[in-house]
Structures are given as structure tokens and as C-alpha cells.
């Protein structure tokens, strides 16, 4: 009988405690501060404007741009196809389906990359995947895609190809007019806007 009394006198108070205490509804963070710092240092979350411009021109359906600035700023200017999720309402239930998904590649952007990085860190800690940040934000976007700087005449050809691509992309996405950068000794003047600088692909193993 004694064992039964001991059991009851342990279990019942524990039950009373658990009944009296509110449920723990906090969401634990997935990464420790160190792990998150490592990821931030690696800068794997950044996507270069060139890649975004390329995806926009190709009308890549997997790209989902997310503007984390305020609604007023979003209405004034936004990238094509972007949706507005102001950072204040990042955790609202209506946006969860956009942020926590496995299909699209979400790219956060703000004027610089600060707010976008904050949004990325929060979603990363919630365990959401496929979220990225536009490198340098809209400022860098304008600098590279909308008003690309003409490379020096002595630059290697890759620089000119990149410049031409950016110029074309900028024009296609609503920037300045096309002014071919290629110097006179280069044969074709104006590249069509959709031309893509081909990335060198390594030969994948034969077997």
C-alpha cells in the first residue's frame, strides 16, 4: 500500500502543477546564435542583382520577389512581380503561406539589404526554407541594373558582356535607353535585351 501512496503523492502534485501552468506556446529558434552568425558570415543568403534581373527577364516562375518596405514605398516603386510584405507584418498569418513553402525562391529586398536581412533572419529561425536576400537592396539594383557604369576600355571582355547584359536588362525592366558599350573593334553593337551571359558549366562526370 505504501508504494501506491508514494506514487499518488508524486503524480497528483505534478498534475496540479502542469494544470495550473499555462501551455508553452513559444516557438524555439532553430539555430543557435553561433550557427546564425556563421550563416550570416558566409553570405549564402545573398542573390546578386544580375541573377534576379536574368530571372525576371526569363520570366522564371520560381522567383518570388518580396518587398519588405512599407506599403507607401512599395506603391511608389517596386520590382516587377513583387509582393509587399511590410516587415512589421512579416509574422501575420496571411503571409505564412508565401514565406513557408518549398516551391518558389523567395527574395527579400528593401532599399539597402538591412531590412531584408532582418526578414531573412527571422524566417530562417522559424525554419522556413527558400528565402534569400537581394544583395545590396534596391540601391545596388539601381546602381548595377538601372544605371550600370561603363567599364574602362581596358577591361576584359567579360566586363563588357556583363555591362551589355545589365544595360539590356535595365532597358527591359524599365531603366535607361540602350547604349551599346562595346567598343568599335567589337563586332555586334546592340545586344538584344534577353541575351544571357553564359555561365561556364563544368563537364559533369561521364559515368
Amino acid at each position, binding site marked *: 500500500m505504501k508504494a*501506491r501512496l508514494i*506514487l*499518488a503523492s508524486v*503524480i*497528483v502534485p*505534478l*498534475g*496540479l502543477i*502542469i*494544470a*495550473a*501552468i*499555462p*501551455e*508553452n506556446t*513559444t*516557438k*524555439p529558434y*532553430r539555430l543557435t546564435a553561433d550557427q546564425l552568425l556563421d550563416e550570416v558570415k558566409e553570405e549564402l543568403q545573398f542573390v546578386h542583382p544580375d541573377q534576379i534581373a536574368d530571372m525576371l527577364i526569363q520570366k522564371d516562375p520560381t522567383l518570388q520577389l518580396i518587398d519588405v518596405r512599407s506599403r507607401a514605398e512599395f506603391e511608389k516603386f517596386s520590382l516587377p512581380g513583387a509582393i509587399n510584405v511590410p516587415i512589421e507584418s512579416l509574422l501575420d498569418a496571411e503571409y505564412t503561406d508565401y514565406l513557408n513553402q518549398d516551391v518558389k525562391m523567395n527574395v527579400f529586398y528593401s532599399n539597402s539589404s538591412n531590412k531584408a536581412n532582418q526578414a531573412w533572419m527571422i524566417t530562417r529561425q522559424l525554419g522556413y526554407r527558400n528565402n534569400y536576400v537581394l544583395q545590396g537592396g534596391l540601391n545596388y539594383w539601381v546602381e548595377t541594373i538601372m544605371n550600370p557604369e561603363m567599364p574602362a576600355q581596358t577591361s576584359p571582355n567579360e566586363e563588357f558582356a556583363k555591362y551589355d547584359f545589365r544595360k539590356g536588362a535595365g532597358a527591359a525592366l524599365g531603366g535607361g535607353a540602350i547604349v551599346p558599350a562595346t567598343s568599335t573593334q567589337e563586332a555586334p553593337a546592340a545586344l538584344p535585351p534577353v541575351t544571357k551571359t553564359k555561365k561556364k558549366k563544368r563537364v559533369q562526370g561521364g559515368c
Partner: protein
Amino acid sequence: MGPLIVNEIISPNTNFLIAFFIGIAFGFILEQNGFSSSRRLAGMFYGYDTTVLKVFFTAAITGGLALLFMSLFGWIDLSYIYINPTFLWSAIGGGVIMGAGFIMGGYCPGTSFCAAAIGKIDALAFIGGIFIGIFAFAEGYPLWESFYKAEFMGSPLLSDWLGLSRGVLMLLIILVALAMFWVGEWAEKKFARKDYTINQR
């Protein structure tokens, strides 16, 4: 922090290893509680031995309390705990078949392996029956598929259904369990059998 697998703290292979050891411990404890005796198991239905009720409810209370406290301390995220989905009719049908088999055979599936491990012939016959049942179910699946999948209810929780918090429900279960233990021990005396002496104090 927990669950360990979901948060990738341990790999699925480590998980199998841990499951292996937990399985051995489970079997050992069943055997130590005399669950390899079909008379003890059947005693539950006749009232002369309610060890089954006491052991399983103690385990459920311990597990439930531990999960709630671990959640309170932030050691486990309860939203990642897998909850078996409920198909109402197959749950009822399965319960009836299992209960009938339990009374007639004197084992439930887990304890039959436990008893077979200590060499009981009737347990081997019981296991043979399990495999025949599995085979018949699998081969005749199209016949009872509609029954099997009827009344899908998702993963309902008793606490949500009653509108109680998990903690209050846990307290209720503890009180109900202690009351059942008390009734069970009363029944053991009331329905005691002269030819049955395991655990009769």
C-alpha cells in the same frame, strides 16, 4: 531542442539504434511485469488481475507528464510530435477485433512476442494468427478499403474536443487513473481466484 530527429540533432540511423534499445527495454519491462502470462492478461477482463491497466496507465501518465514538463522547459516542441490520424470506423472495428482476440488468445500483439521469447507454445500459435490476419487484410484490402478509410477526422485531440488545456486534461487523466487503480485493486480482491496466485498479496 526536441524532437531530436526533426531538428536534425540525431540522424535517422541513430534513431533506429535508440529505437532498438528502447524496444529491448520495453520487452524486458513487459516480461518483468508478468505480461508474458496469458492468465495475467486475460485477468484484466475477468477482474482478478488488473496489472495490465495499472502498468499501461502508469506508463501513459509518466509519458504525458514528462512531455508536458519538457514542453514547459522548452526541451521539446509538441507541435512536431506525430499524432496518429483518426479513422473513426476502422478504429472502432480494429478495437473490437483486437479486444476479442485479446480475450480469446490471452495476448495482445506485443506481449505475444514477449511470451514467445520465453518459449510459450500458445504465443507462437497467436503470432501465427497475427500473420494470417495481416495476410488476409492485405490480400483483401479492396474489400474493406472504404470501411478502412471512412470517417477520417484528422488528428483530433481530447483536450481540444473538451475545450481544456493540455495540463488540465492531464490532471483529469491522473485522477481518473488513480480512481481506476483503486477500483482495480478492489476488483482483484472481489474476483480473486484460488488457482491464480501471481501477484496476489
